[in-house]
């Protein structure tokens, strides 16, 4: 009962080297407007920082934006660290420029969802709100 009333907590941030944060800030704001508590880490996060932050902040999920092309190493690394630190229950989703051919492999590795640059904001909000039910 108390749990149902609790807001979702979601980490939103950017890994990798590119310094383009307009999109990720828009996502953070849209989720806030949907009643979510966003822990915003800013740019240039390493997988280690992301996972430590997710654990300390006890988030339900991590949403990472990547435009640097390093998704094939960074996202699996985050998943690996989460599992290694006993936090494999924290969901991971991604957004940015991710070529179609990479998507199946990342999903098989455990990334729950990947949003392309043209994804309507409402799809991201709907996806995140559905996490509540699962958690």
């Amino acid at each position, binding site marked *: 009962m*108390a*749990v149902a*009333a*609790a*807001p979702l*907590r979601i980490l939103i941030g950017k890994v990798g080297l590119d310094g383009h944060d307009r999109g990720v800030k828009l996502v*953070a*704001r849209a*989720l*806030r*407007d*949907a*009643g*979510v*508590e*966003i*822990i*915003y*880490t*800013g740019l240039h*996060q*390493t997988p*280690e*920082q992301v*996972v*430590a*932050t997710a*654990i*300390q*902040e*006890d988030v339900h999920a991590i949403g990472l934006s990547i435009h640097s092309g390093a998704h094939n190493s960074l996202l699996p690394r985050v998943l690996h660290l989460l599992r290694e*630190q*006993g*936090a494999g*229950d924290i969901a991971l989703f991604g957004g940015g420029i991710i070529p179609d051919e990479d998507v199946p492999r990342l999903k098989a590795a455990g990334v729950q969802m990947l949003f392309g640059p043209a994804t309507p904001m409402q799809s991201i909000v709907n996806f995140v709100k559905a996490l509540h039910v699962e958690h």
Partner: protein
Amino acid sequence: MRLDAATLAEQVAKVDVRAIARVMSLIENRDPVGTAVLAQLTPSRAQASVIGITGYPGTGKSTLIDQLITAYRRLGQKVGVLAVDISSPITGGAVLGDRIRMQQHADDPKVFIRSMATRGHQGGLAHATGEALRVLEAAAYDMILIETVGVGQNELDIVQIAPIVVAVVAPGLGDEIQAMKAGLLEVADIVVMNKGDHEGADRTMRDLQAQCRMVLRTVAHRDEGILELIAVIAEYRRIQDLNGSRCGKTTERLVQRGATSGS
């Protein structure tokens, strides 16, 4: 996975970060298990130093905390941070952004940073901040830094839970200092004028010094003035340990004593 209160309390005492974070969520969510854990926590033997950092929005509180973490870590201390930001009164959502400034410490195992949303609570803190503080104390953090929301004059709950309160102000206050005197500046043990590199800093510094007992000047993002702040905090801590009173009043006595012995 839901754990029972006794197990969680044990894990907190062993500084299991996942458990510490979970317990804080239970408390924030007013879950009865959270209350049960709190009842089973024993404060660690060594007493933590609890420092409240408050002040108007954007004055540099988070940047200052980032530098304080660096400095305390160099001294070998374990640092806990509770950073409170405001929830939207309409949607209940929040963008908690204080820790952006502190992310260089995110994966330091001796640093724990937790963002808290006010969830409708007034007074500059979340309802759960005081209890989250008890969790950090039970996990034996040496220094605990609490950042309030960017407050105005009447959001001074921090005084209730932090024995040392630092008010962070920025240059260009002008006549506002008079208004702040009954409020923020009055409750602060230490006033930090940050952004000492900004225009008008000398003037604001003089105005503050005329009104407050202890004013320090910092340029937080350039790490200027941080060691002085740490020294004053340590001094106040010693004074409090000796006579158990807050430094506001104690300093007054010290200042008076200094004045008489100097004459």
